[in-house]
């Protein structure tokens, strides 16, 4: 498998970002970085190196102080905030460290919530049907209506993946989703994630501090190469 040669799905240029608008020391300073469509990229960086911050920028939750971010052909800074929020809902699937599921909602409701923000009903063909998706990811029907917090870690992982891809995003982003897992669970989770990304031909950007995951990816990048910190 090799990345298809098209317009890059992620393109960053001259990105500067800091949380504190007063200091002129930037947490992120990325002259140029891109990810091609269909690529699977592992971004390695130590804790506190700005990985999550970068992902929040890619999602359009945070905006850079300067520079341009284009995702799936959309220049994020040119989108009004409202549209940026619904763009994220429709085009980006996100799996995070704690799988980012609302703990008091059921699997079905967590997924419906994603549809809700994408302003689509799950009957529409753009979105995947929830039930087949849950079955595809081996989630037992008995667990569909239970609050997430009552599910096992393994079940939560799979619901998180289902939730991330229900809107058929072009881009799947994962923020250290495996770091809380033991090896057995980690491998099973990586398998599910990779096969799902392949089955739905999604681009995957995966951040972690765990270099041992590199076997799953086409490309491995180090945060320190991408981000030139400085004034």
């Amino acid at each position, binding site marked *: 498998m090799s990345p298809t040669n098209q317009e890059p799905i992620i393109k960053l240029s001259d990105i500067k970002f800091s949380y504190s608008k007063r200091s002129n020391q930037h947490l992120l300073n990325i002259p140029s970085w891109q990810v091609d469509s269909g690529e699977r990229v592992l971004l390695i960086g130590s804790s506190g190196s700005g990985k999550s911050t970068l992902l929040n920028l890619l999602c359009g939750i945070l905006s850079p102080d300067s520079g341009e971010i284009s995702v799936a052909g959309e220049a994020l800074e040119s989108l009004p905030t409202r549209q940026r*929020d619904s763009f994220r809902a429709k085009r980006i699937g996100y799996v995070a460290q704690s799988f980012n*599921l609302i703990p008091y909602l059921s699997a079905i409701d967590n997924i419906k919530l994603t549809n809700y923000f994408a302003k689509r009903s799950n009957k529409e063909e753009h979105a995947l049907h929830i039930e087949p998706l849950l079955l595809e990811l081996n989630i037992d029907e008995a667990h569909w209506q239970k609050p997430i917090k009552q599910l096992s870690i393994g079940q939560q992982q799979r619901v998180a993946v289902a939730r991330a891809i229900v809107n058929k995003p072009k881009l799947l982003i994962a923020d250290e989703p495996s770091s809380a897992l033991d090896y057995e669970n980690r491998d099973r989770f990586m398998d599910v994630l990779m096969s799902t990304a392949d089955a739905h031909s999604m681009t995957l950007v995966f951040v972690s501090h765990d270099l041992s995951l590199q076997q799953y990816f086409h490309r491995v990048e180090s945060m320190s190469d991408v981000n030139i910190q400085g004034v």
Partner: protein
Amino acid sequence: MLIKLATKSLLDRKSSVLLSCIAMTISIFVLLGVEHIRKESKESFSSTISGADLIVGARSGQLNLLLYSVFRLGAPVNNISWRSYQEVSSNSSVAWTIPLSLGDSHKGFRVLGTNNDYFKHFQYGKKTPLSFEQGGQFKETYDVVLGSEVAARLNYQIGDPIVLSHGIGETSFTIHDKHPFAISGLLMPTGTPVDQTVHVKLEGIEAIHQDGKASELELQPESITAFIVGLKSRVATFRLQREISETQSEPLMAILPGVALSELWRMLAFLEDTLRLISSMVFVAALLGLAAMMASTIRERKHEIHLLRILGAPPSFLFILFQVEALLISITSLLAGSALLAISLVASQKQISAQLGLHLGANPFSLSSVVIGVSVIAATMIVASLPALQAYKQAKTLS
């Protein structure tokens, strides 16, 4: 989806939400209760007597005379002579009069000496005359007519003998059981002090006081406590009032029940305002508690807020979510507070009506309670906008 999310999120934090709900419920209960009792007691007072143009008694304060003669409350006033009563009754502008003789009691209920004009002319509420549930007005000297509450509580039937005593204590020192009083009529409930009254003929009162030694002829009363006057034409009210107060033979006073009542309202206005202020402050304190509870959860909900953002929620969604959560708590408390009030009113109605002569309706829903409900919701939205704004900011900057 929004409501579902808000509901499940609240249920996920049951204990702190429940505490806020309880505090809000109690404060709304107090708020609605104060308003309800204020309104109902006014209404109850105003509907105790209607259709009467003047009340005449010995000169004292107009409120004292009104409270004592009509509401059976407060300190006794001096008696007036039978001759004065007859003089006013025979005045050409007077349509009817009702003599009232108070001061005695029966098992804790007031005894009122009067005559059959009472059943003919006395009106309460919206000019409703008294009506009999059983039996009828006085026929014999020793006939007794009972208010509904007296009959119900003492379990009296028509024809039962009854012992009347001198004085108003529950148990009197001089109990005269020689008088063969008997029950001739039971009145329908009125929701006024009439329900707590034992009605006896004026001659019967005399008989009690004269220890049964007098003959029937000597039972003509020498004095009464007060009397109610109905005029042929309202126009004569002030003229007659002046004439009565200028009576030379004894110090008399004639009052207009409506005017005396409005004096009472004026005196109570300060108390009313104080109660309202206190109940509003209790509510505001509960509301601030709610806002503080919500603000303190923002820290622990950081993760949830971030997730909702990732899913595509705009920051304004978080503002609305927090508002909806506060409103759900507030509406739940509003319903619980009203239910609690209705239940406690039903439970205490009898007690209040027996002890204070106030008839409080059990239905707490009225225009003013709707106004309070709307204000509660509006106040909630205003106060909850503080934590909601914090949630909005948290969603926007993730910090």
